[in-house]
C-alpha cells in the first residue's frame, strides 16, 4: 500500500465537525470512531462510520489540547474487540490551524497503535486531524497504521450532495501541467481557475468501453481529468466503429484490438500527461474491484446486470459517488418513437439498484453462470417442451446509435464536472429523458430507499460487509 484515502458521508462529517469545533477557536476536541477498510490497488480505503463521542469524564477538560482519559481508551478498546470495525481517533487543531501532526500527536499515535493492536489484532488504527477556519474551510491530515507500516492519508472525501475532497496538508501533490490552464481556458472562464486543478487531481473509473463508456472517456480526457481507469474485457468489432470513440480503420486489420487499448491510445494523442490505466478484464475481477474502490467517482457504462449491481453495491459500501448511464431506443423499421437516456446517481444513503427495481434477476443469474452451466441451460431451452425463457433467455442485443450514446455520455460528463468542481449538480438522483419528446419526456425523480432494503445497513461497511456478488 502506498497511502490511504478516507471517506465520510456529508451528514456524518457535519456532526463530527460540530463536535471537533466545539471548543474553538483555541481549544481542541477529539473522538474515537468506527471505520471500515478495504485494500485497493495501491491505497487503503477507509470509510468513517459511527462516532464514539466522549462521555463525561472521558476527556481532560482543563487541557487546551486533547487529553483522553484511561476510561475512554479502555472502554473503546473493549468495545472494538467485540466488533469487526477498525478503530479511529480524530482530533481537531485550533481554528484555522494547519493539521501537521505535532510531536505529541506522534507520541499519541505510536502509543495507541500499539495499545489497540492487542484488542483489534490486524485491524488498522486510523488517526485523523481536522481544523476549520472562520470561513468554514476545512484542513486535514491523517495516517493509518496497517500491517506494520504507517500510511499517510492522501485526502478526505466528504460524500454527499455537496460533497468535496480535502487534500491532506502534509502530502505533496503532483504538480499541475504547465499547459493545463491554456487547455481549459474556456472551461475555467465559466467555472473558475480552481476547477482546472480539481479536474486534474481527480481519479475516475469507467466500467464499460462501448458507445457510452468510450464517449465519456473521450470527454474526460479533453476535460483534463488527471487519472482515468477504464475497465472492459472486449475486443473491438466492425459494428463498434459506429459508436466506439478511439476505434480507427487500422484496428479492423490484423489482430483484434481491445477497446481499452484503443482508448489509451486516444488519450495519449490528445493529452499524454493524463494517466490512463487500461484494464482488459471483467469488472468482477478482484483487480478491477481494487481500482474501482479507489475512485473519486465511478461511472457505469455497461448494460450488464452484474455491472449495475456491483456499482450500486460499492457506491454504498465504499462511499463512492457513482453514475450509471443507459440508453434505449424504441420503434420499428418505419419510425423511431423514443430515444431514452437513463441517468442514475448512486451513493451512500441513496436508493440502491434493488430499491429502484432495476435488476433483472434472471439475466443476472445467467450472467453469473459458468460457461458449462450456460451451455447446459441453452441445451435445455432447446427442449421444445420447456416454457420459453425458463432456462435461457438469450444474450440480449442492445440496438442503439452512436449519436445517442455520445449524447448520453456528454450529459453524464457535464454532471460529473459539476460534481468534481463542486459548482453544480444533477438536480435529482434519477433522470430519464426521451429525446424525441423533450417537453413532455423528461422525468427527474428523487427516490428514497425502501424501508426493508438491505442497502440500509451497508453504508460504509467496506470489506467488512458481505458483498452482493
Amino acid at each position, binding site marked *: 500500500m502506498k497511502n490511504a484515502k478516507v471517506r465520510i458521508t456529508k451528514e456524518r462529517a457535519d456532526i463530527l465537525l460540530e463536535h471537533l469545533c466545539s471548543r474553538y477557536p483555541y481549544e*481542541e476536541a477529539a473522538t474515537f470512531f468506527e471505520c471500515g477498510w478495504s485494500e485497493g490497488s495501491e491505497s487503503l480505503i477507509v470509510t468513517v462510520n459511527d462516532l464514539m463521542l466522549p462521555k463525561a469524564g472521558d476527556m481532560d477538560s482543563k487541557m487546551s489540547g*486533547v487529553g*483522553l482519559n484511561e476510561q475512554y481508551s479502555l472502554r473503546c478498546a473493549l468495545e472494538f474487540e467485540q466488533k469487526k470495525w477498525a478503530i479511529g481517533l480524530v482530533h481537531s487543531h485550533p481554528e484555522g*490551524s494547519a493539521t*501537521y501532526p505535532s510531536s505529541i500527536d506522534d507520541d499519541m499515535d505510536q502509543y495507541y497503535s500499539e*495499545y489497540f493492536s*492487542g484488542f483489534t489484532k490486524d485491524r488498522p488504527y486510523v488517526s485523523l486531524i481536522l481544523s476549520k477556519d472562520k470561513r468554514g474551510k476545512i484542513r486535514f491530515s491523517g495516517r493509518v497504521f496497517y500491517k506494520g507500516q504507517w500510511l499517510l492519508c492522501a485526502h478526505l472525501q466528504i460524500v454527499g450532495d455537496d460533497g468535496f475532497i480535502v487534500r491532506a496538508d502534509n502530502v505533496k501533490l503532483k504538480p499541475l501541467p504547465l499547459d493545463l490552464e491554456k487547455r481549459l481556458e474556456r472551461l475555467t472562464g465559466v467555472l473558475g481557475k480552481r476547477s482546472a486543478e480539481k479536474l486534474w487531481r481527480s481519479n475516475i473509473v469507467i466500467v464499460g468501453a462501448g458507445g457510452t463508456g468510450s464517449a465519456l472517456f473521450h470527454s474526460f480526457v479533453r476535460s483534463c481529468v488527471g487519472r482515468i481507469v477504464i475497465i472492459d474485457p472486449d475486443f473491438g468489432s466492425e459494428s463498434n466503429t459506429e459508436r466506439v470513440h478511439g476505434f480507427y480503420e487500422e484496428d479492423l486489420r490484423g489482430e483484434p484490438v481491445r477497446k481499452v487499448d484503443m482508448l489509451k491510445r486516444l488519450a495519449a494523442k490528445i493529452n499524454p500527461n493524463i494517466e490512463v490505466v487500461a484494464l482488459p478484464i471483467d469488472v468482477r475481477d478482484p483487480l478491477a474491484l481494487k481500482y474501482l474502490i479507489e475512485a473519486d467517482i465511478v461511472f457505469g457504462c455497461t448494460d450488464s446486470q452484474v455491472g449495475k449491481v456491483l456499482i450500486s453495491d460499492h457506491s454504498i459500501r465504499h462511499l463512492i459517488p457513482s453514475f450509471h448511464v443507459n440508453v434505449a431506443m424504441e420503434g420499428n423499421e418505419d419510425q423511431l418513437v423514443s430515444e431514452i437516456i437513463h441517468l442514475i446517481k448512486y451513493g451512500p444513503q441513496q436508493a440502491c439498484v434493488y430499491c429502484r427495481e432495476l435488476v433483472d434477476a434472471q439475466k443476472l443469474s445467467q450472467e453469473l453462470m459458468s460457461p458449462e452451466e450456460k451451455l447446459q441451460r441453452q441445451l435445455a431451452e432447446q427442449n421444445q417442451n420447456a416454457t420459453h425463457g425458463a432456462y435461457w433467455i438469450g444474450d440480449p442485443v442492445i440496438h442503439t446509435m452512436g449519436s445517442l450514446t455520445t449524447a448520453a455520455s456528454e450529459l453524464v460528463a457535464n454532471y460529473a464536472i459539476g460534481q468534481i468542481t463542486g459548482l453544480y449538480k444533477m438536480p435529482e438522483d434519477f433522470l430519464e429523458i426521451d429525446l424525441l419528446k423533450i417537453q413532455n419526456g423528461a422525468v427527474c425523480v428523487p427516490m428514497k430507499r425502501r424501508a426493508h432494503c438491505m442497502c440500509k445497513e451497508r453504508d460504509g461497511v467496506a470489506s467488512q460487509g458481505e458483498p452482493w456478488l
Partner: protein
Amino acid sequence: MMTGTETIKQGQGHEPEKEKNLFIFVNRQKFDRTNGVKEVMTVDEIARLVGLTADTAVVRRIHGNSGNSSDVLSGEQTTKPGDQFSVTRKRVEGGCEERILKELSVLTEGFQEVEFVKTPRPHVIYKNLFVPCLQQKVDVIVAVPNGYPSAMIDRAGLIEGSATMSKVKGQPQEIIQIAGRSWRMFSYHPHTNGGGLPWNPSIHGFHTYLYEVLSWLEVTK
C-alpha cells in the same frame, strides 16, 4: 511419611506443574515467567510489562472476553494462569500547540527568556532584548497567527510609550492589550521582502523569528 519419589522431588529443582506454566495477558498480549510474571505482582510490575508504570497507567482486571473490567487496582495482585489485565495510560495527550512550546524551549535552553500568552489571543513575548542604540533592554511581542505554522509570523510590538518606539523602522499600527500591558504593533514584515527569507514552515518558527526581531532592534532610525 514421604515416599522415595517425593524425597527426590523436594529440593532437587523440580517445580510444581502449575507454577511452570504461569502466564498472564496484559492488553490481550501474553506474558510469562520469561517476561517477569510471578504469582504475586505489584501493579507497577504489571504496568512495566507494557512499558508503563503505576504512576503513568491505570491497571485493571478484565473479566474473560466479556468486555467488563474491574475497579482500578493497587498494591499487590495474585496472578493465576490466563489472568487478564488492562494497563492503560492515565491520560493520552495530543494537539497542535506543542510546536510553539518546542520552539520556545529551544530559546530557553539558550537562556533567552520567552513567555507564551494564550489569552485573549495567543502571543509570544521575547523578554529583555538589547537595543544597541539605546543601550537598554526591551520586551517585544509577536502574535501567533491563525493557521500557524502555515501562516507566517509577521510584525512585532513594543510597550506603548517606550523610548524604542521612536527608533525602530516600520509604521506604528494598533495598540493591543496582552498580559496586562499595552503594546503598540509595528509594520515589520521580514518574511515578505523585509530582509528575511520567504516564510517556510519547515525551517522557520518562533525560535528563528527571534533573529528577525533582533535585526529589527539593531537597524534603527
